[in-house]
């Protein structure tokens, strides 16, 4: 037992700051990716619903195209997608290494994922409330903004939480090609140098991050749900 503790004390001066910065890098990557995912995934999900042939703005051709694009994004394994978009990453961030560069593939991987969750949440909203709003003379944009999105809010938040959790796991993978963060530490120290202290420390921190995100999400969902 004491041997275990001695090992930790001996490593701590270097490992402590590493873990601290690694955690911050992970939060930085996940935070910005979540922002871009919501920014693009939400409208994409809305369009997937409204362009449906029985939707508010039927446009089957547009829907088929969007759906195909989303499916392509969903079918690529993240590690492959990351490599596939390297040139876009360089174009947008000027580099392919580090947490900032990782935001590009992370967002691109999560946008279609979240768009599908948005689509599912919006489809849960009853046809009759949309009818009712239409019968009141509401414009379509108003129906989206004041009926569809507020009614689906619990589902939209739950979906975003799921997306964030997925992003945490993706971000660890991003470490494999130099994205930084906790995944990077786990691979460089835990895997390549066989240092179990790093391996377990990063595992514990990743679990903690996911737990916190999920708990905060659950509280939010409960607060906005009035069903």
């Amino acid at each position, binding site marked *: 037992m004491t041997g275990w503790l001695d090992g930790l004390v001996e490593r701590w001066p270097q490992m402590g700051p590493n873990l601290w910065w690694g955690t911050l890098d992970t939060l930085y990557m996940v935070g910005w990716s979540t922002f871009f995912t919501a920014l693009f995934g939400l409208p994409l999900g809305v369009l997937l619903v409204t362009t449906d042939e029985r939707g508010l703005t039927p446009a089957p051709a547009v829907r088929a195209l969007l759906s195909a694009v989303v499916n392509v994004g969903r079918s690529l394994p993240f590690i492959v997608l990351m490599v596939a978009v390297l040139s876009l990453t360089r174009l947008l961030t000027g580099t392919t290494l580090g947490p900032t560069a990782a935001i590009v593939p992370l967002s691109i991987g999560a946008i279609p994922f979240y768009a599908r969750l948005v689509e599912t949440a919006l489809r849960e909203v*009853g046809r*009759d*409330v949309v*009818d*009712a*709003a*239409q*019968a*009141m*003379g*509401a*414009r379509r944009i*108003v129906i989206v903004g*004041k*009926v569809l999105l*507020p*009614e689906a*809010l619990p589902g939209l938040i739950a979906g975003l939480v799921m997306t964030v959790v997925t992003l945490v796991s993706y971000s660890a993978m991003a470490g494999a090609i130099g994205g930084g963060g906790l995944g990077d530490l786990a691979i460089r120290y835990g895997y390549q140098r066989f240092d179990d202290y790093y391996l377990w420390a990063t595992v514990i921190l990743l679990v903690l991050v996911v737990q916190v995100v999920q708990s905060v999400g659950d509280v939010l969902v409960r607060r*906005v749900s*009035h*069903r």
Partner: protein
Amino acid sequence: MSKHATPSGGNVINAVDLHKVYQLKGREVVALRGVSLHVPQGEIYGVVGPSGAGKSTLLRCINLLERPDRGEIWVDGRNLTALPPPQLRAARRGIGMIHQHFALLSSRTVAGNVAFPLEIAGVPRAERRRRVAELLELVGLADKAAAYPAQLSGGQKQRVGIARALAPRPTVLLSDEATSALDPATTASILDLLRDLNRELGLTILLITHEMDVVKRICDAVAIMDRGSVVETGRTVDLLRTPGSLLARSLFAPPPVSGDGVVTLTWVDQAEEPLISQLTRLFDVDVSILGGALEEVAGHAVGRLTVRITGERSAEALTYLTDRNVLVEEVP
């Protein structure tokens, strides 16, 4: 433009020759085959019929939630079918609607739901708040303003639905099976509320229902639909006095027996007259009562009796009844 292009006087709703066909999985379903409907100002007008008769499609055509393939819809003197989208949206604000499953926004409080159509209409916040309070008072839910729909009973939800529909001061209220999801006592209280609103605000109500009880309680006039057509229409009380009326047949149980001398007698608001005893005295006939009911229909006492009249002067007796304004129909 058809020759029907002008609305006839006094009617708030004129639906003229509506046709609607759906494509359902490659199959054609005819929902409306030339339906016309004329609803006078201030009436409660019921459209009844079995499910699949086209009632729901007809109602949804009135505010153009469904667009008919052919025909015109006039509401309040405006041809809705000819309006461009912005004017149509404005016109819809003059047509309230209540729904079978209430269609309330679960994310908004009761007050928020009632305020919703006012937000759409661009009514300023202070005015909205005043109007919402007034409406909740009107439907008896002033104490529930901050509650969410999930916390309410079915009857309370429908009251919120009614308050919401009335918020923009519509001239017409469309009711889509509004009491079908409610128990009988709650149904009665909602129908009473609709009747009060109709009287106090002069609100014209077009309702569809499959419940004959609804017709009996509140409908001044009725259209009976079957397989996409209106098969009978008229004022409720007049229809009951019409021989062979489908309405009477749906409202009352069928005659229990048939045969020689068996007739059904239908009368309206004559419960006080001792008709049967007069018959036996004046014409020396025997009257056996085989079945019957007395119903309150749209505020009138309507009696329907199945009797067998025997005796030499039974023909005279029947003539006497007909002269006294009793509808006599032979049961074949």
